[in-house]
């Protein structure tokens, strides 16, 4: 009995996810042809809605891509600031973001700096930065 209700609950949830995904898809599907562009250097392909839907549904159901918690983000900055000064210099941030990991493009770097950097000290006080960004997210 409970099982049936659970299944029905999941079915309804899935149907709702489908509708939500379709709505969001349509915002980006400005040509109304059921495809959205993939942002690449030279866009070669489109994603068709039929392919997109099952993948996205699974992502939502399994709750992947949850937002990164504030404290983990803070700890990440602290790792890059072993002397625990409470800030990173502009050069340090640029070095890490553009040379390590999944590197930032120049545009991304400039974009991040425009909000993060304190122009007087030319550094990023990451605790304040995080607080500001996280408030905005909500």
């Amino acid at each position, binding site marked *: 009995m409970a099982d049936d209700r659970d299944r029905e609950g999941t079915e309804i949830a899935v149907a*709702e996810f489908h*509708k*939500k995904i379709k*709505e*969001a898809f*349509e*915002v*980006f599907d*400005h*040509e*109304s*042809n059921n*495809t959205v562009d993939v942002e690449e250097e030279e866009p070669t392909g489109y994603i068709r809605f039929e392919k997109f839907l099952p993948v996205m549904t699974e992502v939502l159901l399994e709750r992947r*891509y949850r*937002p*990164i918690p504030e404290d*983990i*983000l803070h*700890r*990440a*900055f602290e*790792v*890059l600031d072993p002397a625990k000064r409470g800030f990173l210099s502009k050069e340090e941030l640029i070095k*890490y*973001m553009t040379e*390590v*990991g*999944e*590197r*930032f493009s120049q545009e*991304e770097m400039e*974009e*991040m700096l*425009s*909000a993060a950097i304190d122009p007087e000290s030319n550094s990023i006080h990451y605790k304040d930065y995080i607080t500001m*960004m996280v408030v*905005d*997210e909500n």
Partner: protein
Amino acid sequence: MGCGTSSSMKDKKSEKALKAALVIQNWYRGHSAQLKTRQRYALTIFQSIEYADEQGQLELSNFFSFMLENYTRLLEEDSELVTHLFDSNIQDKDRQDYWVLIDVPDSYCGPRLQFPLTFTDIDLLIEAFKQQQILHAYYVLEVLFETKKLLQQMPNFTHIKTSPSKEITICGDLHGKLDDLFLIYYKNGLPSVSNPYVFNGDFVDRGKNSMEILMILFVSFLVYPNDLHLNRGNHEDFMMNMRYGFTNEVLHKYKLHGKKILQVLEDIYTWLPIGTIIDNEILVIHGGISESTDLNLLHRIERNKLKSVLMPPIPIDGDHATEKGNKVGTTITARGIRTNGSLSEQLTKHEWEQVIDILWSDPRGKRGCYPNTGRGGGCYFGPDITSKILNKYQLKMLIRSHECKPEGYEICHDGKVITVFSASNYYEEGSNRGAYIRVSSGTPPRFFQYQVTRATCLRPLYQRMNAVESRAIRMLKERMISQKTDLIRVFQLQDSSKSGKLSVGQWAFSMENILGLNLPWRSLSSHLVTTDKDGNIDYMSSFQDIHIQKPVKEVQSTLIETVYRYRSDLQIIFNVIDSNHSGLISMEEFRSIWKLFKSHYRVCVDDSQLDELTERMDLNKDGSIDFNEFLKAFYVVHKFDKLSKSDTKVA
């Protein structure tokens, strides 16, 4: 630290650093993506509402026809109204004499133009407008008369040739955004024989410097008539100007001579060319095409007979039924409505439709040609239509404007259609970029993008997004409150248990059903309503932050709501009735119009209090109503707003 740091410790350190960097990068990208999505959503909201308004505008033309048909008193007693609505030319001679008599006082310290105009006059105007000076009505009218004379000599389509050393620049909608025109002239150079331009319509409305843009463009045209090309857009239309702000701008800036200026502009619009053809390859028009677009016909028609999109040709025999779909037709059985030479004064229905298609259509990915239900005029045309029409006339490309694009331009239909839009920050600061295109034969078009900003340094992306988003949400909430009664009805229909709550699906369905804006309601719900922990929506919270100010306390909400919802339409209707621009109409006219309005728009509202309402608002006790004051009293108050009344406009 000293020597002896083992390499494994170093590895561990860099591994930790790598992980930390990844965390930050992933988080940042997720955050950015969210911001971009919010921007897209906001743009979708703006666009949906804008097109719904345009639809309302076209609906208005039906109302005018309906009004003429039924308001027989108008026909008999107020033939001035009829001539104002449908007639063409008051004699030119009349107008020129008027203008010459205007005096420019010595105290006027604005720009003074010297005819015949030269390029120094273009500079003069630009410098003056940068300092927010206003060009005296005398010069305005002089420019307008000269422009009209010159435009009358232009064909419907200007044919242009380019060469590798003579590229041509194509700009899209400017919509009164003077800063964008300044930027274009600055970045791309002033127009000249070696630097030709095409401005592809929609110079006016919405922005606050439509007049200044027109002056600069017309003066540029007068100085370089063979190198500065102007195409008509759907906003070069006196009826559109009434709703979208240009009429207000003119009457405000030119209190004495504004009406005259507006009259001359009405005419000038009709003489603007329909399009340009570059190198026999590129067709440049404002909106788009339809499957029946006939360029040969369009070359031949007398374009100046199309006064306004809202004035479709009246059939003389009573035999025309309105077609279904987007075509704005009339059902009048005319009996001598028109005063003189009626038949020859207008285009045929077919010709009229051809032009409307050119000015109003939008390209879409779907094949075929469909009525443009978003705007209510023109059509949606697919890639097959583009190919068919381009092939038919041996053209290679269509460049058009008419739609705001986030990046200022967009390519579709397999590279055959380009949209170029030149008003950056069109909806709100940060909403979109503007662009222009440089073209010459043999080379692919080059795109230039920009975004005007008032701040000396650009605000960070998230701040810009917040501004764009809040304004979009505000506009949406204003729509919602103007349909409050209908929305509540539908909500309650679905809330069988009278709990005050609905599922997200039910709420989204209701919203789309009543508002019909094709928006992603589920994703927007967090901005618009409160949701409980079970995920159900408290639907009355849709209205909590906002209410319509009641001009008089005791009047019923439904009446207030209805007047608020239709305030733009009512303002236009009143303006048209008030043919001598006095700002007043009689109580009797007001009542008759309201009655007709109710009937045509099928609004069911108890207006027994309407008389009381107008009286109580302390309007002129002599039986006439200042309708602008009347309508201004219906505005929306946002609960958490620092600027409320001054921020909301009637139209």
